[in-house]
C-alpha cells in the first residue's frame, strides 16, 4: 500500500468513525443520563435514513433544508416518544428496559414495512455535491463524503459545546450525577430528560440522513448499526461522550483496514478489538465524563 492510498483509507476510516459517533453519542447520552438501555436507538437511525428518502422529492437540491426538516421531525417524534413511553421506563430494571425497547424495534420495523415497504432504496446526494476530487491515478474521492465528515465534526463540536459550556449542559451533567438534588434545586428534571432524549433521537436520525446517500436505505439497517454502536459504547466507556468519539474512530480504522487486509475475517475485527480492550480496561477507555 503506497502512501497516497494509505491516506485515502485513513479518510475513509475517519468518515465512517465520525458517522458512528453521531449514533453512538446519542445512545451513550441516553444511557449515561437516564440510565435507559435503549435497543431501539438503531431504529432512530433507520427512521432518519427513510426520512431522507421520503423527504427527498419535496426538497430537491435544498439539501441542508431537508436535513433541518428531518431533524425537527425526528426531535418532535423523540419528544413524544419519551412522553408516551420512555418516561415510564426509568424506574424499571435493565432487563425490562431491554425487553421493552426490543419490542419497540419490532414495532418500528413493522411500521416501516407498512408505510414504505421492504424495498432497498438509494438516495441521491445533492447535485452541488456530485462528483469528487482526483486522488491518485485512478481514484476520485466523492465530495459528498467530505461533506459528511465535515458535518459530523461540526456536530461533535456543537455537542461538546452544549454539554460542557451551556447552562442546559450543566443541568444535564448535574442530572446525571444526582437526579434528586437537581430536582431539589427546582429544575424540571422530567422536561430536561425529554429534551435530552429528543436530542439523542435527532442525532441518530441525522446520522441516518447523512448516511443514506452513502449506504443506501434498507430494512434492518438499524439493527446492524445498533450492534456496532454498542461495541463503540462499551469500548469507549459507558456514558462517556469523549470515550464514544475515541472508540468510534478506533472502530472506523479497525473496520476499514480490516476489510482491506483481512477480507475474510473483516467481520470479527471490531469484536476482537472490543474483547482486547475489555481485558485491558474492563470499564472501557474512559470513565463517565460528567
Amino acid at each position, binding site marked *: 500500500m503506497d502512501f497516497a492510498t494509505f491516506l485515502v483509507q485513513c479518510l475513509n476510516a475517519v468518515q465512517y468513525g465520525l458517522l458512528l459517533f453521531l449514533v453512538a453519542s446519542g445512545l451513550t447520552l441516553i444511557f449515561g443520563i437516564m440510565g435507559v438501555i435503549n435497543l431501539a436507538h438503531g431504529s432512530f437511525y433507520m427512521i432518519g435514513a427513510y426520512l431522507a428518502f421520503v423527504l427527498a422529492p419535496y426538497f430537491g437540491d435544498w439539501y441542508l433544508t431537508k436535513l433541518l426538516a428531518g431533524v425537527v421531525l425526528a426531535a418532535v417524534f423523540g419528544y413524544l416518544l419519551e412522553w408516551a413511553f420512555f418516561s415510564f421506563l426509568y424506574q424499571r430494571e435493565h432487563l425490562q428496559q431491554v425487553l421493552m425497547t426490543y419490542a419497540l424495534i419490532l414495532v418500528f420495523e413493522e411500521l416501516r414495512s407498512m408505510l414504505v415497504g421492504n424495498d432497498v432504496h438509494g438516495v441521491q446526494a445533492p447535485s452541488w455535491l456530485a462528483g469528487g476530487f482526483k486522488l491518485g491515478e485512478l481514484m476520485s474521492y466523492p465530495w459528498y463524503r467530505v461533506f459528511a465528515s465535515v458535518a459530523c465534526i461540526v456536530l461533535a463540536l456543537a455537542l461538546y459545546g452544549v454539554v460542557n459550556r451551556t447552562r442546559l449542559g450543566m443541568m444535564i451533567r448535574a442530572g446525571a450525577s444526582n437526579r434528586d438534588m437537581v430536582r431539589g434545586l427546582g429544575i424540571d428534571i422530567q422536561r430536561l430528560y425529554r429534551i435530552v432524549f429528543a436530542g439523542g433521537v435527532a442525532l441518530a436520525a441525522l446520522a441516518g440522513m447523512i448516511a443514506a446517500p452513502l449506504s443506501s436505505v434498507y430494512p434492518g439497517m438499524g439493527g446492524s448499526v445498533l450492534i456496532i454502536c454498542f461495541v463503540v459504547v462499551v469500548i469507549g466507556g459507558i456514558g462517556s461522550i469523549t470515550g464514544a468519539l475515541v472508540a468510534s474512530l478506533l472502530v472506523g480504522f479497525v473496520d*476499514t483496514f480490516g476489510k*482491506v487486509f483481512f*477480507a475474510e475475517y473483516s467481520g470479527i475485527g471490531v469484536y476482537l478489538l472490543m474483547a482486547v480492550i475489555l481485558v485491558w480496561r474492563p470499564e472501557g477507555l474512559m470513565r463517565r465524563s460528567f
Partner: protein
Amino acid sequence: MKFPTHLALVAACVASLALPAAAQTAGPIKVGLMLPATGTFAALGDMIEKGFKLHVQEQGGKLAGREIQYFRVDDESDPSKATDNVNKLIKRDQVDVLVGTVHSGVALAMAKAAKESNTLLIVPNAGADAITGPMCGPNIVRSSFSNWQPGYSTGVVAAQKGYKRAMTITWNYAAGLETVKGFTEAFEKGGGKVIKDLSLPFPGVEFQALLTEIAAQKPDVVFAFFAGGGAVKFVKDYDAAGLKKAVPLFGSGFLTDGTLEAQGASAQGLFTTLHYADSLDIPKNNAFRKSFALTYKQNADVYAVQGYDAAQLLAAGLNAVKGDMGKRDAMLAAMRKATVDSPRGKFTLSAGGNPVQDMYLREAKGPNNEYRAVAVKALADPARGCKL
C-alpha cells in the same frame, strides 16, 4: 356455505361413478410453495410463484391430468426458522412436492428436511453448491443454477478477453464466495491470476475502503458478485469512484438483473454472464415472455423463468407415470432424464440434479441485459461431493 359443499360432494360422487378408474388417483397433487413473501427477496419469490403457476395454467390448471393444490409458507429468508417452516408443509399439510426457495441458507435446511422425510424438492433459485453437491439426493433437483456456474462462465470470458490480473469483490457469505470460487477456477485455468479477493459482511454496502484498494492495486479487471439493492449501490459507487473508466467491471448476471433501471448510466456497458438473457431470441422465450406479460401485466425475468421450469420439471416427472405419485422412482428417474424446453433454451439435469445449461454473455444496454454470445455451451456443475 352449506349448499355449495353439498353440491360439490354430489358432483364428486357423480364424477367417481363416471370415471371409476381415474378416481383412485385423481385427488389433487399437493404442491408446497415455500418462498419469501416479505423482506428483501419478496419480489423474487413473487416472480417464482407467478412463473410456476403460469406453466400449470397453460396446461389447463392440471399436470398429467391431476389438479394442483397449492400450500404456501413465507420462508422469511431466515435460516433459523427454515426447519419449522418446511415442517409445516411436510408434516402438517403433507405435501407431495416442495418448491423453494431463494435464500441459500434456507434452501439447505429444506434440502435436509426433504431428505429426511423423502419428500420431492425442486429448488427454483438458491444456488448453494452443496444442494446438488454433498447434500444431493435422488429426490432433490434444481431448476435454476449452482453458484459455481455464473462465476465460472464469467471467468472463461474474462480470460478470453486477455485480462491477466483480476480482483474479486463480494459479500462474505455462501453465494458470494462460491460464485467467486467459480470465477477464479476458470480465470486461472485460462492463464490469468486473481491477485486479491475482497469481501464485506452481508448485506453491508460500505464499499469505499474496498474501492480504494482496487484503485491502489490497478488490476486488469474486477469480478463482482452482488444482488438486489447491494448490486445497485456497488455499481453506482464503482462509477462514482472513477473506476469504471479505468478498470473494466465484470459480474455474475445478478449484478444487473432486476437492478438495471436503478443503476442508470452507471451500469451501461457492463458485461455479465447468466443462464438467461431477457432478449434471448428463441421461439420458446418469445412465447413465454408474451404469455407472462399477458397474464400478469409485467415483464418476466430470470426468477420467473426458474419458477416456470420448476413446474416443467414436475410435469415431466408426472407425465412419465401418468400422474401416479406412487411410482416415485420412475417419476424421479424421468425428471432426471427429461430435456426441459425452457425459455433459457433446452437443458437437462446432471447426475447431481442441477441444470446442464448454456451460459450467456450479456451486455447492459438501456433497460435490458442484451444477449451477446454463448459464454460456455452446456456448462455442467462439477457437483463435487455428490455421491449419486
